[in-house]
């Protein structure tokens, strides 16, 4: 399960919408044991593409430090699919960097954004429930 605060959820979906027509991306911080993201770090997509994303490496470093300074960790990444469903592509699976992370995909194919989360371990994708909490 991935739990998101309402603010984190709104921020990540908003960042994905702001990034149109390109894919947008960012990182999630929180307590890995609680499986809860309480921090959202919108980042630049240095790939600047509607089909690919690359989290800005410098912003990744700053997010990692910020989460650590708060006694938390980076626990996942989010990105948008602008024209396809909210499911990890083969590109996402091939490049998934950390089996302990949550991989959130926001589909902007339809009018209402769809947010789903996955675990990717040894190339195997499994969906997990996403729960949005008040805080």
């Amino acid at each position, binding site marked *: 399960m991935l739990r998101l605060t309402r603010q984190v959820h709104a921020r990540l979906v908003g960042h994905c919408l702001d990034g149109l027509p390109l*894919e947008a*991306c960012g*990182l999630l911080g929180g307590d890995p044991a609680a499986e809860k993201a309480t921090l959202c770090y919108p980042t630049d997509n240095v*790939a600047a*593409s*509607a*089909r*690919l*994303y*690359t*989290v800005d*490496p*410098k912003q*990744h*470093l700053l997010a*990692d430090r910020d989460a650590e300074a708060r006694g938390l*960790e980076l626990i996942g*990444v989010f*990105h948008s*699919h*602008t*024209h*396809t469903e909210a499911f*990890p*592509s*083969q*590109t*996402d699976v*091939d*490049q*998934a*960097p*950390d*089996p*302990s992370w949550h991989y959130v995909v926001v589909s902007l194919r339809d009018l209402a954004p769809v947010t789903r989360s996955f675990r990717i371990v040894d190339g195997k994708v499994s969906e997990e429930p996403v729960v949005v909490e008040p805080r």
Partner: protein
Amino acid sequence: MPVEVRLPTVLRQHAGGQPSVQANGGTVGEVLEDMVRQFPGMRGQVVTEDGTLHKFVNVYLNDDDVRYLDKLETKMADDSVITILPAVAGGAGRT
């Protein structure tokens, strides 16, 4: 004098779960080589067999990505800290 090398979660399993390790070297490449000598499970995970940085990791010397410095030849100072993070990328791809 050893410097601190901060590890991403995926590499910590090769260092007994430690979030950072100490290693010696005059350049970034030498420090990483000394780290792999101490923790052989990391071989091939940061530096490829042909001696270049693995494309799926980013290595920083303090605040700077070493790809934009002198890569593995970047010189160390005594108070330098190396941070290794995974390169985070993906996308819908060709669909």
